[in-house]
């Protein structure tokens, strides 16, 4: 990889540098390799396909081309076109066919090129796959994983139809697990868990994270779906975040430490099932909560997180809960107006200072 990718990823503009050592998840001395988020996802696919012949990959241009972001690149050469299967542009049938294959014992990992295109497949995702186990009285199970890149920002300029964060579309449907990994370590461990899960899992990869690097253990490991991860322990304020926003939270926490503010960062990891207990326990401990999500504000994930705080920690709160979210707007193209759409480290800093000053 290029040195710039290895060492740090610049947020652009005057923002501070985000380096891999912001999030250390592997204990010193553990055999591990540094790799990118994209490589970690690919490694999870490779290992699971090697371990289990029923696992296969299917989607638009996932073969030699390696998918829109190169995640499946080289898998075609290793496993061939039957198990790394290019499809016609037919999102609904890609998902539906995965459901059919899953019903008869396969474990498909399917890719929709951008989460924005999932609208074409919502019937198969939300009305078929999510409900089959329930409405058949448990006669069947649907063990597929639907991988979709989402999010935008930082000069990507992918505009209104290739930049959205749509996790709550899926989390609103009982019957879907929804995972948003933030680091290479989490991406690998959560994808392995998703592939081994007997129910449909929506796996949302943040496009901007693909080049982020971090240590990944050599040993096989699986992370639990439905448990938050405390990325940083603190005592004064809790930041709850997911996906790429975890990095902004971590960077803000590091900067606030210099101001004498001790920040706890909770990485939600999965918004369905949501681990309300870990969020509640942290809120009870600190009494101050900031919620950070890239999705647009209204009916976005932070509303549900705030409710978890209210239900579990109301009597402990020392300040109103504050949220930092994407602006309620379609995503524009030009950098000058795109920049204002996304939550950034400065917004998180400001929100923390606000709850500390209350």
């Amino acid at each position, binding site marked *: 990889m290029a040195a710039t990718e290895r060492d740090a990823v610049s947020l652009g503009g005057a923002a501070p540098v985000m380096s891999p050592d912001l999030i250390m998840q592997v204990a010193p001395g553990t055999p591990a390799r540094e790799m990118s988020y994209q490589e970690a996802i690919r490694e999870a696919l490779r290992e699971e396909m090697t371990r289990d012949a029923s696992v296969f990959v299917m989607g638009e241009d996932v073969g030699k081309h390696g998918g829109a972001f190169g995640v499946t690149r080289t898998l075609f050469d290793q496993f061939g076109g039957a198990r790394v299967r290019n499809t*016609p542009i037919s999102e609904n049938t890609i998902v*539906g066919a995965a459901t059919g294959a899953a019903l*008869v014992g396969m474990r498909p990992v399917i890719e929709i090129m951008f989460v924005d295109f999932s609208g074409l497949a919502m019937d198969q995702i939300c009305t078929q796959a999510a409900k089959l186990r329930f409405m058949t009285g448990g006669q069947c199970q649907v063990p597929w994983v639907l991988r979709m890149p989402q999010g935008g920002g930082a000069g990507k300029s992918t505009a209104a139809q290739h930049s959205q964060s749509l996790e709550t579309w899926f989390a609103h449907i009982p019957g879907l697990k929804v995972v948003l990994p933030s680091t290479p370590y989490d991406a690998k461990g959560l994808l392995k868990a998703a592939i081994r899960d007997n129910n449909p899992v929506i796996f949302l990869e943040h496009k901007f994270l693909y080049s982020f690097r971090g240590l990944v253990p050599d040993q096989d490991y699986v992370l639990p779906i439905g448990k938050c991860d405390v990325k940083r322990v603190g005592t004064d304020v809790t930041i709850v975040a997911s996906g790429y926003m975890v990095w902004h939270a971590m960077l803000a926490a590091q900067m606030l430490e210099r101001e004498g503010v001790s920040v706890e960062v909770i990485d939600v990891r999965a918004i369905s099932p949501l681990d309300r207990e870990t969020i509640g326990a942290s809120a009870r401990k600190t009494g101050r909560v900031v919620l950070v999500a890239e999705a647009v504000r209204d009916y976005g994930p932070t509303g549900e997180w705030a409710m978890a705080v209210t239900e579990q920690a109301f009597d402990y709160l020392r300040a109103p809960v504050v949220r930092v979210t994407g602006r309620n707007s379609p995503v524009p193209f030009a950098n000058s107006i795109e920049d204002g759409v996304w939550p950034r480290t400065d917004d998180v800093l400001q929100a923390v200072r606000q709850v500390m000053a209350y």
Partner: protein
Amino acid sequence: MNPDKSTLLEMYRRMVRIREFELASMDLFKRGQVKGAVHPYIGQEASGVGVCMALRRDDLIAGTHRSHGHNIAKGADTARMMAEILGKVTGYCKGRGGSMHIAAFDTGSLGALAVVGSGIPLAVGAALAFQMRGEDRVAVPFTGEAGSNTGNWHEGLNMAAVWNLPVVFVLENNHYGVSTNIKDAVKVDDLSVRAQAYGIPGERVDGFDVLDVYDAATRAVERARRGEGPTLLVTEAYRFEGHYAGEPEVYRNRQEVDQYRQFDPIPRFREYLLKENKATDAELDAIDTEIKQEIARAIEFARSSPEPEPATAMDYVYA
């Protein structure tokens, strides 16, 4: 094809079983004992039975909101089906599905999906799994003619065609998508020509004639089993009842329905069996009686079965 006597009698038995089950379910619905909706398959029995008799038990079907008939044709147990439409815990789906979602996985179902066209991709995916594993099984999605206007259907035919998958797409032309006649929804008369767009064979058969359907289905299934790819099979029949039991049917007149009722597939097949000396009146009467008793027992079983315990409402919810 030259089916033997036991096969012919089994075709008759399954058609009568569907008819009696549907008459009973409509009756229970009209008396308020079945909630939700019942979509009768009456008039189309020869289609489901002709197709499913051409299948093995380990072949799979994907159903629709109107799939009582498909399940019975594939060999499902009428008592567990009746229990399901009465919302009882002894039903196939333990009362979670109801009439529109009866799916007997033990006799080869991929589920009954009540969004028109949505079962198509499931069958394509199951067939893909069969192909990848080198199994000689076949997947058969049923759809009404109106389903052939959905994206699922066109995407599914194309994908199965391009991958040469063992699928027999059965398009049952009962003439109406709810109230809309197919003439108002498709420009072509012969729906089987739609297969040409995907480079696969399409065949149209008399859906009132169980042997015609069986013959064409057997050829399509064998073709799929040999690895020669999918076929579109259009069965031309008619929906004798409304879209759902008790529907007012303001969009068609009695004469039209009566005209099609002359082709009722069950008396027609009975006449054939007698005329060709394949069966005697006594044999066929015995089947009629046997089925009436079976359905009466199914109703009794369903009525006497318990409803699901409220405490189990969240069973099978994992996220």
